[in-house]
């Protein structure tokens, strides 16, 4: 609707040439959402002379649709679809999984390591645990932990990065040296150490994973914010009497966020991988319903019940791939010049 308001009627006749007579608002709306136009929007490389011309001119007025168009590659849609499915597993496992949580989590049921059957579509693992049920319920932990830890790293990184970039001097030095120290220890090693200090509870793993992500985001944010600091609008904000914090978080921050948003989706995938690795190494609650934990617990029964160890891994791969596809698409759309 916003786009409609942006174009004045006299401009429209300029845009579409003499033949175009803009009708009432309702008619315009009807024209915008014809099947033909929608097909043109969604089909990559669609050619239609009139619509092409209109598209070209409209692009001068609106960027929103062109973003959708740029996002509209088959791989990005696939990624979005995967993320949607996995997230709905995580949110509504009660409805999507036909097995209640208590049966999946800690029960000891008859039928250890049974092959796939009608009752258990993907077979059962040790203690008669249903593999499909644990696959669906396991999405909950992976998604919760990775999203929440990314939020922790994002908030921390953005705050520290902006402060470091704006203040400069010894504050910048201090923050960046601490970031250097933390990021020079390999991530998994530090994660293992911190998690064994804090304990294997959900909130502790979340916090550890989040804290480890802060240096990366801080560095990214700092480099983006430093280039913004020299801009004229910062100076004019200063002149008009805005406080330091206001300049930092109301002026500089929103203008340097796009780089970070691009990194976000990709890092969710990395966080899920880190989480799975941690659980695989055995640093996880023994009653957790988690993919990495399942792989670890069932790897010793590989000869008898390969499905029990292999399916949770497929869950990890597909989820991470979904987020990475989405991240790739976002990067291509928002930041076409960046590297990998």
């Amino acid at each position: 609707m916003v786009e409609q308001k942006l174009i004045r009627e006299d401009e429209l006749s300029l845009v579409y040439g003499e033949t175009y007579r803009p009708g009432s608002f309702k008619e315009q709306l009807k024209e915008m959402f014809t099947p033909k136009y929608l097909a043109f929007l969604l089909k990559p490389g669609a050619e239609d002379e009139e619509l092409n011309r209109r598209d070209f001119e409209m692009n001068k007025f609106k960027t929103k649709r062109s973003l959708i168009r740029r996002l509209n590659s088959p791989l990005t849609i696939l990624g979005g679809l995967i993320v949607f499915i996995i997230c709905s597993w995580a949110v509504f496992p009660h409805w999507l999984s036909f097995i209640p949580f208590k049966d999946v989590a800690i029960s000891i049921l008859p039928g250890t390591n049974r092959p796939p059957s009608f009752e258990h579509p993907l077979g059962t693992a040790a203690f008669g645990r249903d593999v499909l049920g644990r696959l669906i319920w396991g999405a909950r932990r992976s998604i919760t932990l990775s999203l929440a830890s990314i939020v922790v790293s994002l908030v921390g990184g953005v705050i520290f990065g902006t402060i470091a970039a704006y203040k400069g001097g010894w504050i910048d030095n201090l923050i960046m040296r601490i970031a250097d120290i933390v990021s020079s220890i390999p991530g998994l090693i530090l994660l293992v150490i911190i998690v064994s200090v804090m304990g294997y509870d959900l909130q502790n793993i979340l916090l550890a994973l989040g804290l480890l992500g802060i240096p990366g985001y801080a560095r990214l944010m700092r480099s983006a914010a430093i280039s913004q600091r020299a801009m004229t609008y910062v100076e004019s904000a200063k002149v008009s009497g805005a406080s330091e914090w206001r300049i930092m978080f109301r002026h500089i921050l929103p203008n340097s966020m796009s780089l970070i948003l691009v990194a976000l989706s990709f890092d969710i995938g990395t966080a899920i991988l880190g989480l799975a690795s941690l659980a695989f190494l055995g640093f996880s609650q023994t009653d957790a319903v988690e993919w990495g934990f399942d792989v670890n617990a069932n790897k010793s029964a590989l000869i008898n019940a390969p499905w029990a160890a292999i399916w949770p891994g497929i869950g990890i791969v597909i989820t991470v791939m979904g987020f990475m596809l989405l991240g790739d698409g976002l990067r291509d759309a928002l930041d076409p010049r960046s590297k990998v």
Partner: protein
Amino acid sequence: MSLLKYTVRRLLMTIPILFGVIFITFILSHMMPGNPFLKPGQFIKGNPEYVRALLEKHGLNDPIIVQFLKYLKNMLQGDWGESLIVSKGIPVWDLIKVKVPVTLEVGIYALIISSILGIRTGVYSAVHRNKPGDTIIRTVALLGVAMPVFWLGILMQYFLSIKLGLFPTIRISTIGYDDPIRITSFRLIDSLLTGRFDLAIDTAWHLVLPVFALSFLQVAGLTRYSRSSMLEILELDYVRSARAKGCKERDVINKHALKNALIPIVTIIGLRFGGVIGGAILTETTFNLKGMGMLFVDAVNWRDYFVINGLVFITTFVFIVMVVFVDILYAVIDPRIRY
């Protein structure tokens, strides 16, 4: 001269970072619940008197700052402490010397394979952009990036070892085979040098799966990097002029474009080399190789403070030195960069 000055300055700058790393790991490792002689959740609880006596003996009852200063002083003198429980009484440095070759053997073979393969596939994919070959390579590369190494290992163990019986599942050598005489400490190279071809074949056989698992993931990452780096270069003007003056297409790609595209790729390879020890944890646990990664997991599980500290220090040290080395390498590869 300025390069030398730059190198010295960079190396001096790593000292505070290393100091911070030692401090953080020391504090964190001592903050873990329990102690080397009494792990939380351990079934058999030792005699509390005895545990206290052991702690007293190793000086673990002192205030943490005192302990840290003592540890730092010993470390500067080359004494990294000794293992308290995992390999009782063996100095950490000796332990590392025994374990490092296993880790490096898998890591370096994988790195060499992945560097050669990753750059080639990346270049192929960039040159044949949006063609079927490119699409296949990109999909496989994405799969490799998204795949946890332990799962790939388990998959291969199941299909290649258990189902087809092609490769052994775990360990670096068959049980009962003796070790070759140590020359380079690399098992495969040593057995070739000393003429024990039976050992060499056995070791190579055992190394196939771990090296493949590790290098597949690295190839995936490297392909993505070199593809995008190459794509950027291929659009530059001098590539067009090279084509216009009639260079062979192969020379344009390999001599003009690739040389410039290599600069960011060298960074990645250098950092990977620095991360070999840190990245070994998952492969070693999956394939039960007794290297640094397994030692680290054991040490954390048993709260073996000095082993944890020693391992983290050596890992970080190698990593930081590689970062500096890569920076210097830049100037060598690219004469436009001056320090």
